[in-house]
């Protein structure tokens, strides 16, 4: 635990260090772009983050019923249910799980609403992978 924190507080921590030293993180990624989910699963895996992809809000809820996650990343703009609704359901189901929102540019209003509903933070798409990972780490660390 201490070790991890030390590593994370070091600024500009290299990718390899994160890979090697951090505990494996279970992450739920909710995004209706399967192409995006696929590549994220692979890239995150290289960084010791195990990603489970959900292509819709409904699928995400179903997965949450069966599995525990350290954190969730939620795309607010999805076809079936409004991202905010998914967030609310998630917060009811697993209140302790931090949720990081992904929003399109210019929909900061929705992101703010999400923060009010208990989301940990939001990122504007498209984003840096490094930024996302840092935010996830921050969320996980806070939760633990």
């Amino acid at each position, binding site marked *: 635990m201490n070790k991890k924190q030390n590593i994370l507080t070091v600024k500009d921590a290299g990718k390899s260090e994160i890979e090697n030293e951090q505990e494996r993180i279970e992450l739920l990624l909710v995004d209706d*772009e399967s*192409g*995006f989910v696929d*590549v*994220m699963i*692979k*890239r995150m895996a*290289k960084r010791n983050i195990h990603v489970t992809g959900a292509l819709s809000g409904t699928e995400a809820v179903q997965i949450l019923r069966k599995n525990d996650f350290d954190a969730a990343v939620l795309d607010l703009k999805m076809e079936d249910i409004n991202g905010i609704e998914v967030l609310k359901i998630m917060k009811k189901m697993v209140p302790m799980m931090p949720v990081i929102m992904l929003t*399109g*540019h*210019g*929909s*900061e*209003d929705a992101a*703010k609403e999400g923060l009010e509903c208990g989301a940990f933070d939001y990122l504007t*798409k*498209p*984003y840096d*992978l490094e930024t996302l990972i840092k935010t996830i780490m921050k969320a996980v660390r806070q939760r633990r």
Partner: protein
Amino acid sequence: MYNGEKRRSSYLMLFIKNRIGTVLIFSVMPLILVSGIILYQFKASHYEKIHAHLGTLVKKHKQNIDSFLNEKLGDIHFIAEIYSFHELGNETFLKEKLETLQQAYGPVFVDLGVVNSHGVQVAYAGPFKLGKAVYSDADWFKEAMKREYVISDVFLGLRGLPHFIVAVRKSVNGDQWVLRATIDFAAFNDLVENIRIGETGFAFILNKEGDFQTKPLMDVIPEKGPYMDLLESDTKEEVQIVEKEDELSGNNIYVSAFLKNGDWLLVYQQKASDAFSAFTKALRVSVIIIILGSIGTIALAFVRFKNMAHHMEKAEHERRLMNEQIIETGKLAVVGELAAGVAHEINNPVAIMVEEAGWIEDLLEEEEFKESENIAEFRRALKQINTQGKRCKEITQKLLSFARKTDSKIQEVQINELIEEIITLSAQRAKFSNVTIGCQLQDGLPVIQGAHTELQQVLLNLINNALDAMEKGGGTIDIKTRLNKDHIVVEIADNGPGIASANLKRIFEPFFTTKPVGKGTGLGLSICYGIMKRLGGDIEVQSVIDKGTIFRINIPLKKYIGEKQDLIM
């Protein structure tokens, strides 16, 4: 742009031409008409007056001359009546009588002579040595034999000098004799020569054959002019007045009266321009007045119409601009919606592309690939994909900020402070481009409700555009603020190369740019437009090629109470 100016000026000229015609009809024509009528009336009455005056003059002189001749005839008649042929046949007695006459009338009587019925002069008194001259062939003697009294025409006679004869015939015991007297030509001539008016008026006497009986002051050719007509006319009027054009002396007025029971004609002749000089002067003055008046009226009308045309044109231009603005707003809404939709849809594929590229990068870290000889090239290509992905991101972000309400905090903004802040920000670039930025900011402007960052973006964008436009040649940017009712107006004027009118129409369209590919996205002004519309304000542009461009933004003072929705989406 030049075409436009030409078209505008020709439109202006057409407008003025059309109206000038009307002005001519309604203001200059009455002037000419009234002056013409007055002149005509004046001319008629003036001519009448001159004619009457000349008529009277000639009539008076005719009477003078007639009475002169009659008087002389009377004198001779009196002598012939009271003295007998024998008494008068005595040359001494005759000389005595001549002296008496000369004492009474001056040197009018040159000589006296008594002629018998054969035409032989029996007695003579006078300065010439005429002795027993024979007059049987002389016209006057033949005449005297037929009539009792004769006043001859002027002739040279035996003495070779112009003179004329006054003769009276008497009979003694059936024998005829004639008393004749020579009248001094000079004395008679003076009588006629004294008729002088103006510069060109003179008089003379013609006999029935058109020979001069007096010496005219100026060259007169009896065959030319209306003299013969006057001589032959059998009018009952005492005085005849004729005006005639003549190639020698121009237009002349002729006044004539018969003398000596129709034997002689007294002619008074004067150039019409001289006779009617008062009228000519009046005519000249009124023509000058009409010309000056017309010029004045037309000049005034020209100036007035030019102003009017400018006003109309301005109004027309504003109306057209407004139409364009309305069309533009509609067009921009559609284009904006489309652009925002595209931007949003593109975000996801771009994100995936960038991530996939990242994934390849991750894989390249593995041992087996590190040995590859092309590894550097792979990395460069992946970096390029990343860079271009970021560029796409920037574009879509800009597009979305044009189309959508960004979440900017509404706060109180002091526009003058904001402008000063931005001038400081741009100072370095302006210096580099050799551009001076000046500002005239109205003091005490009220604060406005708006997003600081958005207004900053608008102003910065406009200043940057101006700087871009003047990058090559340098110039000035003038920023002005003023309060206009419930708006604050900010003007950003440059003296750069201006914007062609074709481009001006499309200037607020997303992706419209005149910059080279890759230099500008064509979104800057669209975003400004979107921001100003969201603020409830306005942005407009005026530009003249080679003169410069003015961007004017109107910011409402009242907080924009629009729906909290996006402008377009």
